[in-house]
């Protein structure tokens, strides 16, 4: 489902003397449907960079990333938008939403964007918010005013609203209490059972051991400086 071949990424800092910083070179791996792969490596090794390239958020300088048949390193923006709508989900660590939009709508939005009927989309959103223990009295409020932990759970609910065939998870269980952590791990296990190909970053080692089928050490992709 996710097929990365010979991926390379440099950052060129034009406003700092044109410094070129190679961060990834020769990254190759595959993730099959129903499989969860954990990216591991020290802080700064490039785990998040790999995730962002997979999502089309960072440009690659070489190699290819095929997700559901589309090479996102060469795809047109509208093809990536369609891929993100239908195929590729991403639960980042930060919730970014239009202010004033109610939480229930924030969570239902991925389904509404797919043209699903409103009642079904909102029913799914209510179910997820209930499972992630966001009190119902908060659903009509914008999550921008919520605590960090609540925002993270809203973000997870939104990321799992649609059953994406490919899913990227950036520290999905960080800073969650035991009950909510268990809920998120079940959501991940359910997604795997439904055939999703998952790439995750988990600093929570117990969570990683439970949901990940294998690990990929991104330090193997760190370019050797001459």
């Amino acid at each position, binding site marked *: 489902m996710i097929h990365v071949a010979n991926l390379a990424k440099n*950052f*060129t*800092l*034009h*406003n700092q003397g044109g410094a070129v910083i190679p961060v990834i070179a020769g990254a190759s791996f595959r993730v099959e449907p129903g499989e969860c792969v954990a990216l591991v490596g020290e802080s700064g090794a490039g785990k998040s960079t790999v995730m*962002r390239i997979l999502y*089309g*958020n*960072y*440009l690659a300088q070489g190699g290819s990333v095929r997700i559901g048949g589309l090479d996102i390193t060469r795809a047109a*923006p*509208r093809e*990536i*938008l369609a891929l993100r709508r239908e195929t590729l989900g991403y639960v980042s660590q930060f919730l*970014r939403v*239009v*202010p*004033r*939009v109610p939480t229930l709508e924030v969570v239902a939005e991925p389904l*509404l*964007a797919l043209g699903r009927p409103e009642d079904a989309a909102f029913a799914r959103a209510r179910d997820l918010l209930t499972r992630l223990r966001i009190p119902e009295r908060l659903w009509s409020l914008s999550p921008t005013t919520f605590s960090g932990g609540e925002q993270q759970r809203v973000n997870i609910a939104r990321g799992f609203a649609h059953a994406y065939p490919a899913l990227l998870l950036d520290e999905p269980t960080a800073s969650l209490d035991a009950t909510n952590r268990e809920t998120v791990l079940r959501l991940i296990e359910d997604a795997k059972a439904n055939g999703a190909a998952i790439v995750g970053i988990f600093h929570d080692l117990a969570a990683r051991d439970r949901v990940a089928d294998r690990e990929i050490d991104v330090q193997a992709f760190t370019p050797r400086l001459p």
Partner: protein
Amino acid sequence: MTPLLDVQGLSKHYGGRIGCADVSFRLYPGEVLGIVGESGSGKSTLLNCLAGHLGPDSGQVIFDTRGDGPRDVLTMSEPERRMLGRTDWAFVHQNPRDGLRMRISAGGNVGERLMAVGARHYGEIREAAADWLGRVEIAEARIDDRPSAFSGGMQQRLQIARNLVTGPRLVFMDEPTGGLDVSVQARLLDLIRGLVRRMGLSAIVVTHDLAVVRLLADRLMVMKDGHVIETGLTDQVLDDPQAPYTQLLVSSVLQV
């Protein structure tokens, strides 16, 4: 899929000075394109050339019309282009005073655009106007008030209602949230985003506010000195800018 708007090699000079130079892009149905750049970068010139307010020196602006399919807007007759401006196109000005008639009522402002496309039944026009005031969160009780009695944010929402009442397919917006308080901006962004999705609109939004395009636009075009220097997915251009100028622009934003 046929692009809704296909722009090829559009250039506009002001004497020896470049307004915009050799701009080409395609906009597909349902897409929101953001155009960013500093003052004088040519983004408003480009928008005004696209919308037919300014005549470009060269290039093509091909719009997929409802009746006759793709046609070059620049070679249309003036009445045809004006009809397009009243039906399938809408233009939201930065200053609501440029897009509203300040001496007629709020309801009249919305109704006027309907009458321009042939609506004649007073009751139906008033009903449609009331419906649209509701959609942009203006109380129906204000329908007979003049926009001069409205706050800046209400005027901007009224301008949006006036523009969208005829069900356009393409909306041009020039700094739609400029000059508004941040709380009012948020409300307007929510409104625009909701309307774009529910009506399946395409939009071209010119702004210098990177936070606004991040929330509204699917794709981004960065302009400098009249040239398009970078294009791409909005989040990609903002998070991994490639051109020196875009890197400077993104890193210059104050964090809150």
